[in-house]
């Protein structure tokens, strides 16, 4: 068995885990990031929802349940996390725009508007599109984008179809990265002779250099262009994940991808190591501190049996909102089914309440009472708790 020694071992490579890893690696700690697979943020819109209940997201704190994990971070902590996030992304090919003091809207594929806080630059011009003419461009054969949803809901819109020669969003994105494709596309748009206004299209402007591609098109057609997030596979989500992962790797962090954790070594109140089921010969990853950021049910951090819910790595007791029949309301659209409350309860130092472990910290959507869908606070919570947990962990290491 191979053993590798680190200062911190972060389990879960999603937004929360990555934030914690980047912070700690940036401070010079030997950080290992273990992830069973790619995280759920790869499927998201790529936008950072902080709290969508009020115009200024921080004002929405008052509406949160008193046990919501945001209270453990505090408004200042949330601001700090967003600031750090923007800083990190400013060095990547996909900088983010937006202010922690003001929520903003982006246009969705069905013509509704989603309230969010920080958006990738490729979606910046979505702001204010209600008041302008928007021409929606889609691509022939694309399965997951239908401009008619949008043009039927919003007045002052039009649409056209472009033949990219391929029809999946990922293939179209690959085409945009070919030399000359964006220029041809821009020429075609110019030929449409559109009224003044903006151009919107599904998020396919390449995976690696979307802002450069967007700016090339925008400058050629002399109008603003913005992307609309799509159903999975989500290219903005993929970009966000890859940018954060690259930031971590550039800081010298180690990634262990694709293997589940098969066992945990615990000595009293200390976790000493975790073992990865690396193809028959286990890899033992030792650390002085551990951060658990494995997410909710979708990502596999929590698992539900017929009558209860389990935390899948350490077996930490999970707060479960009642029996199975109480986990969901009858109405699918109710803001927040009770099961959203499920998760790990932590104290102010982000250690799980129900254990005596001293060197384990928990962050992200695995936290109890996050109620991510109800509050629309997914990525914001992940960033904020990720940073806070990393800071508390840092104190433990020094």
């Amino acid at each position, binding site marked *: 068995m191979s053993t590798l020694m680190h200062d911190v071992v972060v389990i879960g490579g999603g937004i929360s885990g990555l934030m914690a890893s980047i912070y700690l690696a940036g401070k010079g700690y030997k950080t290992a990031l273990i992830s069973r*697979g790619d995280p759920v943020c790869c*499927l998201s819109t790529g936008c950072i929802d902080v709290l969508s209940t009020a115009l200024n997201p921080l004002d929405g704190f008052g509406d949160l349940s008193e046990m919501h994990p945001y209270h453990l971070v505090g408004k200042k902590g949330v601001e700090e996390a967003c600031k750090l996030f923007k800083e990190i992304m400013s060095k990547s090919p996909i900088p983010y725009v937006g202010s922690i003091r003001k929520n903003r809207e982006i246009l969705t594929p069905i013509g509704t508007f989603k309230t969010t806080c920080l958006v990738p630059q490729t979606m910046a011009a979505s702001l204010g599109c209600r008041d302008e003419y928007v021409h929606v461009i889609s691509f022939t054969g694309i399965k997951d984008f239908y401009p008619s949803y949008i043009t039927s809901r919003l007045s002052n819109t039009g649409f056209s179809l472009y033949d990219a020669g391929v029809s*999946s969003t990922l293939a179209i994105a*690959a085409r945009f990265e070919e030399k000359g494709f964006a220029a041809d596309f821009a020429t075609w748009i110019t030929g449409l002779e559109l009224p003044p206004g903006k151009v919107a299209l599904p998020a396919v402007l390449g995976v690696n250099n979307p802002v450069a591609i967007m700016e090339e098109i925008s400058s050629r057609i002399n109008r603003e262009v913005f992307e609309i997030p799509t159903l*999975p596979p989500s290219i903005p989500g993929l970009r966000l994940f890859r940018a954060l992962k690259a930031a971590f790797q550039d800081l010298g962090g180690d990634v*262990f991808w694709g293997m*589940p954790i098969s066992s945990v070594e615990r000595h009293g109140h200390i976790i000493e190591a975790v073992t*990865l089921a690396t*193809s028959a010969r286990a*890899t033992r990853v030792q650390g002085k501190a551990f951060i658990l950021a494995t997410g909710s049910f979708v990502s596999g951090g929590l698992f539900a049996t017929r009558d209860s819910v389990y935390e899948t790595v350490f077996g930490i007791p999970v707060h479960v909102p009642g029996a199975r029949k109480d986990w969901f309301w009858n109405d699918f659209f109710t803001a927040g089914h009770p099961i959203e409350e499920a998760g790990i309860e932590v104290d102010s130092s982000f250690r799980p309440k129900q254990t005596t472990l001293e060197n384990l910290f928990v962050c992200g959507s695995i936290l109890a009472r996050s109620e991510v869908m109800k509050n629309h606070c997914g990525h914001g919570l992940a960033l904020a708790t990720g940073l806070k947990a990393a800071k508390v962990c840092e104190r433990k290491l020094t």
Partner: protein
Amino acid sequence: MTFEHCVRCTICVENCPVYKVEPRFPGPKQSGPDAQRFRLDGEKSVDQWVKYCSQCRRCQIACPYGVDVAEIILKAQLKYGTEHISPFTAHLFANAYHLNALGSTFAPLANKAASFKAAKAVLNLLGISREPDLPEFRFFNMERGRRRKGKGRKVAFFYGCHLNFNRPDIGWKIRDMLVAMGCRVVMPRQTCCGLPALGNGDLDMAKKYAQKNASVLTSFINKGFDVLYACTSCGLTLIQDYPGILEAPGGKKIAENTYNVNEFLLSLLQDDKENRPLGRLEKRIAYHIPCHLRALGIGYPAAKIFEQIEGLECFVLDDNCCGLAGTYGFKKRNQDVAHKLGEIASIPIRALNADAVVADCGACRIQLGHYTGLSAMDPVEIIAEAMANSIDNKKKSGHGIKRLFQKTPY
């Protein structure tokens, strides 16, 4: 039945290199867990489109729920292969070992012949891609010089076909490096790991290769040897497929005692606190992580070694598949895919203005060397250079060490 866990999130699709450039490939989700529900009636397979999957395994690594996407597709490929007539190139590449051996025996002639335009045209007719060029053969291959060397920690080196027939110089370098680090290196009698046969639909042949190697390797393991591999695809086959789909006797033992050469070197370096075997090396390298190295789940040990080399600027690139994927890109029908992916993978490398592109896998080196125009090196070549520059080493054995790292036939 891991396909049960699939919730159709499409994360595997986001990671598939072939899907984005080959419209005829339905993608890993549809080819794997989606189609699997329809394959359960035990009828003859009709899913001919599974051939487009290059088995890079990125889908399986990316799946957050433990769905064995790549393995499901592999099994479908094998089933289709046994039930239908395989194309000529499949038979050709399944027998890569023997063809390589032939080429090596007649090396100078074979290399010369392959360079003629006419030969290329013939190969193209047979179903082989025009680019990149097939690697050159070496007559003085590793099989001809399998002498044991060194004293100390017992190591059995599984060199693999590419090093054996095309780049024995890298093989000798590895051997000499291990000897210099205090190991007793033997090169067991070995044959192809079996992956080309497996990847070309011939499970029986792959199993035969596996059995042969397994009996040799297990006897060494029983005598206290660790098995080392340099080619990450051989490694993946030994560690995952021998105990798995190839059902090699002793497969589990092999998996537990087999190490990547850089992983092994890293642990030797970590244990050796006194000496500083790595000297300074002023170089800017783009380290392209082979898909199969990611699949091994051991992290990127060569990168950790590079961190210890002063003056070396190393940029790790792990988001792209080079597109050659072993024998996959050499087949004419996949030529287009391999070309597009080669170009895509080259973009970040070229943008770095690197001196060289580094990759643990022979196929990646061939492909990226071709598409970037840069010198393509194995990580051990970088490490060996650094070692040769080491003051300690120079002090220790003077010009003897220098000779150690020169190109020698044996």
